[in-house]
């Protein structure tokens, strides 16, 4: 007996009980739909996290001065003054270091003609833009020469540019920072808030030496950020730099580090991992509903086999083999589950679109997730259809014929 005939038999049997078929399918529709929508929401979240991490610089290491210990008195983190630009220069020579940015922070009330604005000042080196993956919107960045000469130049973040200059271009204008007149040579692109909600664009960058010598009168740096060529390198560099700094700072074996180092890659890994777990969690919750849909199919198929016992007996008397009966019922279950799968794909896509539209959540439905959900629905049909179909095929002809 050929497949088209069998499929026709299955379809005809299902169409005889349309309401029942639709309700049975509904379970699978909802199951597949929710799997697709949930996976979409999950991978959307994953993508957003990946984007945020990329904007932070995923393979970055951050080094800050540690706590100092003066005869038993331990001051807080960041209180030592032992991290210097020389440290940064040495780190820059290590293999797989893409860029190194020593940074000195301060705050200032800056003035431009009649207006003023309180903001963060960061003393930076030319590599800062690379380390932070932060391109310029206009003008140029602080150069090596500016650093050597401790030039009176600055690069503005978008917020500062807007507050002081409104819509006009700030290029070549001079602003007053703590009594120092600095020429604006560039404006950064907008970066938005960081993961902790701080406005990253509310900043002025000036040469690191200018801050050290002319504003603060210090020789140490507040932090060194560096980017490694890849994630594996960042983990290796973490160890190497630790070793290097301990040697340079002449620390004895039993002395603690006088610096702290953070690996952003670690954070990235954790976030990505949790996003993946989140996706799996959503997906598996949704799969439960698909499973329940499958049980619905089995339930209806069992009822159907009982109701149609006599029909099965007649078919056997007319020459149906056991496997003909098995396939007839299995195909019915498969038709139910795959039809549910198809409708569920549409429901899932619709649901994902609705979520994307009415919430701020990004939603990414991948073809793979659609395929997986659909195939899963088919498997549910086979798995839950097999038992009723076997039951039907193993009925004894005379008993099936006698069944009232």
């Amino acid at each position, binding site marked *: 007996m050929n497949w088209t005939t069998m499929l026709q038999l299955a379809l005809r049997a299902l169409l005889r009980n349309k309401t029942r078929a639709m309700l049975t399918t509904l379970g699978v529709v909802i199951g597949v739909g929710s799997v697709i929508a949930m996976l979409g929401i999950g991978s959307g979240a994953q993508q957003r996290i990946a984007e945020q991490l990329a904007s932070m610089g995923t393979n970055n290491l951050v080094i800050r001065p540690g706590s100092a210990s003066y005869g038993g008195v331990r001051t807080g983190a960041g209180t030592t003054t032992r991290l210097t630009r020389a440290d940064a220069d040495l780190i820059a020579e290590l293999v797989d270091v893409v860029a190194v940015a020593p940074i000195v922070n301060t705050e200032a009330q800056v003035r431009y003609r009649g207006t003023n604005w309180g903001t963060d000042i960061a003393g930076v080196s030319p590599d800062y833009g690379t380390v932070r993956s932060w391109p310029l919107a206009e003008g140029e960045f602080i150069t090596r020469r500016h650093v050597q000469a401790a030039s009176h130049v600055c690069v503005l973040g978008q917020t500062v540019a807007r507050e002081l200059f409104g819509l006009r271009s700030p290029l070549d204008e001079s602003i007053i920072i703590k009594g120092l007149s600095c020429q604006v040579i560039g404006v950064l692109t907008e970066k938005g808030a960081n993961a902790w909600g701080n406005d990253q664009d509310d900043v002025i960058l000036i040469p690191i030496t200018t801050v050290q010598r002319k504003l603060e009168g210090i020789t140490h740096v507040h932090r060194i950020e560096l980017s490694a060529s890849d994630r594996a390198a960042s983990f290796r560099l973490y160890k190497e730099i630790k070793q290097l700094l301990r040697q340079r700072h002449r620390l004895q074996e039993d002395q603690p580090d006088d610096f702290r180092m953070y690996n952003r890659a670690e954070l990235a890994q954790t976030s990505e991992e949790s996003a993946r777990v989140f996706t799996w969690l959503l997906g598996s919750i949704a799969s439960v509903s698909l499973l329940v849909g499958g049980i619905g199919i089995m339930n209806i198929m069992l009822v159907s086999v009982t109701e149609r016992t006599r*029909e099965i007996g007649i078919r056997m008397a*007319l*020459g149906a083999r056991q496997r003909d009966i098995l396939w007839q019922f299995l195909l019915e279950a498969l038709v139910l589950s795959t039809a549910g799968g198809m409708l569920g794909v549409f429901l899932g896509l619709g649901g994902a679109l609705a979520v994307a539209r009415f919430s701020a959540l990004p939603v990414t439905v991948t073809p793979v997730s659609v395929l997986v959900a659909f195939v899963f629905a088919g498997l549910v049909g086979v798995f839950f259809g097999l038992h009723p179909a076997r039951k039907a095929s193993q009925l004894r002809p005379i008993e099936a014929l006698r069944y009232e």
Partner: protein
Amino acid sequence: MTPLLQIRDLHKAYVLDGVTIQALRGINLDVEPGEFVAIMGPSGSGKSTLMHILGCLDVPDAGSYQLNGRDITRMDSNQLAALRNHEIGFVFQNFNLLPRTSALENVETPLIYAGIGKSERRQQARAALERMGLGDRLDHLPNQLSGGQAQRVAIARALVTRPSLLLADEPTGNVDTATSTEIMALLDALNQQENLTIVLITHEREVAEHAQRQLLLRDGQLEARA
């Protein structure tokens, strides 16, 4: 002439409510091709059990049964299904048409299991129904047919695979007298004009008298009726 159907010392017992019933105790039966045999017997005499074995729906506990020279006691369920499909046509008391399935589709069903293609199937089923005078009832559902029409659809379905044996189990049990006469005339015609072998099971004497040979099943054994 070799008999179409040859049964020797056939035994069958079944268990009903924990009690073993010896339904058939040594049946011997030969049916020649083209014969019309009626088997009678009171209810509970084992008529149905014999019918099921003759129809290859069940297998005997002991004894031999050869159909067209083939020993059915050695067959597996697939071979029995094929035999039911090709060699045997069933007509039941309660018609046993597939519910909510048109007359044409009912008659097509055995051809589906015979593996015959759709257009060929359609054509043969239509021809079989037309021979039964039901050319205008092809798309009717079983519940839209009279008892006589339903039984004629069942006969068309039984004969569509051109079997060598027609088994009729109380074919007139559920119809009125006029229809009964009509159905028996049809069976007579099939037997006489087309040389169809028929084994009929009934408890009605008038029905049994259409057959050339009448047998009585009593206490699990067959005896000729004078």
